[in-house]
């Protein structure tokens, strides 16, 4: 049985244009051996949900630095879960105040990474979480 590469989609919901973090993480995950779909910015939760279903990814990374994460991350997760039974891993990144983290976790964002997080930390988190979930997709 050959192990399939982890598939991750990175996207920026909302109007925020700060895409350095999202792009650096996308590239870092690719260099860590994952297949990365970088969807880009200025996307609605609906657009992201549609792409997640089409791309059949294992993990989704959402990035937002404008403060709109509370409005956008939970909605995106909800729309994806409505359309998919797959136990997709969600992570978030950006300027996320600590007090918002419990609310995001309840909404399904397993972990948030702020400025200062290392690429190794992020890729390791994805690998370990998917393994724990037992769906580190085998072909």
């Amino acid at each position: 049985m050959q192990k399939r590469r982890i598939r991750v989609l990175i996207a920026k919901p909302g109007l925020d244009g700060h895409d350095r973090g999202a792009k650096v993480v996308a590239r870092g995950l690719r260099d860590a051996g994952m297949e990365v779909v970088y969807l880009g910015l200025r996307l609605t939760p609906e657009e992201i949900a549609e792409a997640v279903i089409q791309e059949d990814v294992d993990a989704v990374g959402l990035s937002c630095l404008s403060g709109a994460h509370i409005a956008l991350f939970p909605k995106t997760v909800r729309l994806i879960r409505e359309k998919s039974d797959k136990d997709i891993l969600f992570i978030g990144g950006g300027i996320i105040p600590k007090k918002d983290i419990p609310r995001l976790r309840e909404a399904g964002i397993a972990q948030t990474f702020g400025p200062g997080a290392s690429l190794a930390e992020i890729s390791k988190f994805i690998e370990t979480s998917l393994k724990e979930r037992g769906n580190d997709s085998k072909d």
Partner: protein
Amino acid sequence: MKEEVERKKEFRTTVDGAVVKRVYTPADLAEFKPDTSLPGEYPFTRHVMPTGYRGRLWTMRQYSGFATVEETNKRYKYLYKQGQTGFSVAFHLPTQEGYDSDHPLSAGEVGRCGVAVDSLQDMEGLWDGIQLADVSTSMTINATAPIILAMYITAAEKQGADRSKLRGTVQNDTLKEYIARNTYIFGPEPSMRLITDLCSYCAENMPLWNSISISGYHMREAGATAIQEVAFTLTNGIAYVQAMIDKGMGVDSFAPRFSFFFAGYTNLLEEVAKFRAARRIWAKIMKEKFGAQNPRSMMLRYHVQTDGFTLTEQQPLNNIVRVTIQALAAALGGCQSLHTNSFDEALALPSEEAVQVALRTQQIIAYESGAADTIDPLAGSFYIEWLTNQIEEGIQKYIDTIDEMGGALEAIKRGYIQREIMQSAYDYQRAVDSGEQVIVGVNKFTTGEERIPRLLEIDEKVEKKQVERLKKLKSERDNEQVSQMLDKVRRVAQSDENVMPVLIEAVKVYATVGEISNAFRDVFGEYREPSII
């Protein structure tokens, strides 16, 4: 030199990775033509003004705006009372990207990254009790800059101010939005048309207004090195100057009102050298390439903001120290205006306390450090002079490369500039991850404990309030008039007439940012970025 043990195998600049020697001597300058120019003299390496800060200090201008116009107006009055000498407006993202607050894409964004301005009514409220005839205002607005400037002019005139005497700046630099920051709406060609319409309108009607602020700051934030920051800013500048000349404007009719915007990083000596090199190279471009006669056309006048990316979420008080060094670099480098970041900005929008510390940092540098008492005090240092030359060479190489490609617009369309910056951002992150680039409190000298400062929160009711205000406006204004005016905007957009006069008419009848942007979208279409990672 005797072989002795040093901390590191080699020391390198962060601007281009050149090896930094143990010590610099006159021999390092031998291959360069000595620059003995004085402040206020071509090529303005040392300062644009002959009196430097002895005549006038830099303008202390804190970028600020959040929630609705009421909250922001209160913050402006507070900053003014604290000794701030100019205003700088942060608009929320919907205003910057041409959506009204009630648009589905605006959900969650209203009043977050800046103040919500949908119509002239909001613009008037923003300046309630502040006489626009007496202040200078910088507005960070790009794709919708002509609409926002039309609102500002109208609000000022309603207060009784004279259009020709208004002082301030609009960023109006959409080319860099395709490279970094990403608040574009239309494609590069229609954007160039709107940018140059605004610049020529100002050249003819608002002689004290800076019609553009050509910005490297956001490219630096996106990962550019200091050399890339200046190089790509100047190549955008060249594209704008050329576009104005192609429009039939004489170079000296508009170039004196072109201004610039750079980042201030923590590597003090590199930053000072960067500013010196940037002034020198722009003066040469304006004189030699574009044949400017007026010295003011050759002066690189610029705003500096200390760099947001360098702020850490971990041990946030350390950021006060970083900002101090960055602001000192800006002052020693000769900036015309300065924004200092607040120490809590890696955590949230800045609180009032943090904003005050940031402003005080500038005041301490201006009044206590002595850095403002003589001009360009680091000149003549062998290292600074060598570094200035080194950076100038690096910038020139990029300018030549982009010139060969056919200019900035072409380089952006090919994704060349975006890829160069992306590579630098990635290299930097890897250097941080490996520990080669030390960030105190992040990858070295870390502590478990964390002091979380009091943070500013934006009430989720703000969005509701703004949407209701907009709804009320739309029901009370003369909608027949608005729709006629929007038709007129479309007609002007299709012609080659300057858009500014019709925009002033349109905002007067309370057509909104979103409505006018949509009229433009009908004519120009929308831009979608190529995916570059």
